[in-house]
């Protein structure tokens, strides 16, 4: 089967990669680019653990074919490690014990970061909507919601 050559900008760097037709974005991110913050849970769009930003929009990377990302801009948690908003969110997640097993934490942080960009003082309802597509199997949602509220507030925008 013919592979095709595509170029994806991941975390600010252009990556030429070879993909097969069924390869999904998550396959390229994890297996070719070694970005392991992107987790695979259900593979059917139900759990949201694979969330990344594509052209600035939060999407499930298990539901997007890699070939459809040719020429697009992808951001994973690895690309935001030096970002001040992300550092703040990480700090409040740690302070509030918002990571239990930690499996959903990267996706929760990506959704939180996406929310923080749009809303300086999100209400609990807005926070719940923002993370509604991400399943925490430890069911520790209240710590997560508190962390996001604090992380956004400290932005002081």
């Amino acid at each position, binding site marked *: *089967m*013919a592979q*095709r050559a595509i170029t994806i900008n991941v975390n600010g760097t252009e990556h030429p990669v070879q993909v097969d*037709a*069924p390869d*999904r974005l998550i396959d390229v991110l994890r297996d070719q680019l070694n970005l392991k913050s992107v987790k695979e849970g259900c*593979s*059917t*769009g*139900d759990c*949201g653990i694979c*969330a990344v930003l594509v052209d600035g*929009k*939060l*999407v*499930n990377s*298990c*539901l*997007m*074919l890699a*070939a*459809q990302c040719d020429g697009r801009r992808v951001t994973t948690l690895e690309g935001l490690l030096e970002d001040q908003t992300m550092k703040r969110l990480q700090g409040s997640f740690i302070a509030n014990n918002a990571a239990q097993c930690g499996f959903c934490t990267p996706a929760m942080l990506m*959704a939180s970061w*996406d929310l923080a960009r749009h809303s300086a003082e999100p209400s609990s309802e807005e926070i*719940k*909507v*923002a993370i*509604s*597509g*991400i399943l925490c199997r430890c069911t520790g949602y209240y710590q997560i919601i508190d962390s996001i509220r604090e992380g956004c507030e400290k932005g002081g925008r």
Partner: protein
Amino acid sequence: MSSLQLYSPTDLNDALRFLEHDGRNAAVIASGTDLLPRMKRRQISPSILVDISSFTEDLRYIHQSDGTIRLGALTTVTDLLESPMFYGRLSIIREAATLFGAPQVRNVATVGGNICSAASSEDLIPVFMALDAKLKLASARGERTVPLRDFVVGKRQTAMEPSEILTEVSFSPPGGHSWTAYEKLGRRNMLILAMVNEALSLTLEDDLQTIHSARLALNRVSGKIPALAVRTGNFLEGKRATDQTIAQAQKVLASELSLTSDFRGSGEYRTEVAQVYLRRLVERCTRQIGGPS
């Protein structure tokens, strides 16, 4: 999916030509939020995917002209939420978009994809049916327009030929003494496939008492097929929007629905909820229009 191939056409005409000649066992993919999980579960196994997701310049738009609102098939659910168009009489579209999936899905899921999926869980189908939407279907041989009410012919079955692509959804926004409303029930608030999904477009006469027209659509009317509840709509027309009329209409609706049970809920429960929603929808619409409270 190991033998799967992907065709990335250069433009819509290229995609249509491809489907015309090599369309057997092909599936059109936009965002893939419905298609890919179904392939994963082996509910369908196309041998080639025709990727139209890059045609956003041609197929992603929300326009209003000559009294018609036109949505390009690649318009995303987030686009609907961010548009200034869907307030007031058209807030039904915002309501449905708000309850649609979750942010990651809304950001990519398309209006055209939701309609073409044609399952009883597609949130937008009852909404656009209540708005009496029309669909533009393109093929290499030309274009045709089909009313949405005639489009869904069975569970996940549409009137679309394998060589066709849905390019546009259009409808006339309700005017005058009209309003629209939407209700959805699932087992939780977010990221849920609807158990009951019900949309109403209601127009009153100048007296603000008598129902001029009522278009009621549900995710399931008979079996698992989204459709208009035509008998219930007809029953309401010409009657005064009173408590008694609604109570009678609820009975008509119950007799019109033939709902089966599945793991999401029993047919009896769905019917009960559909009746409750009918009352809410009529009351919400009449209140907004300024009719009987």
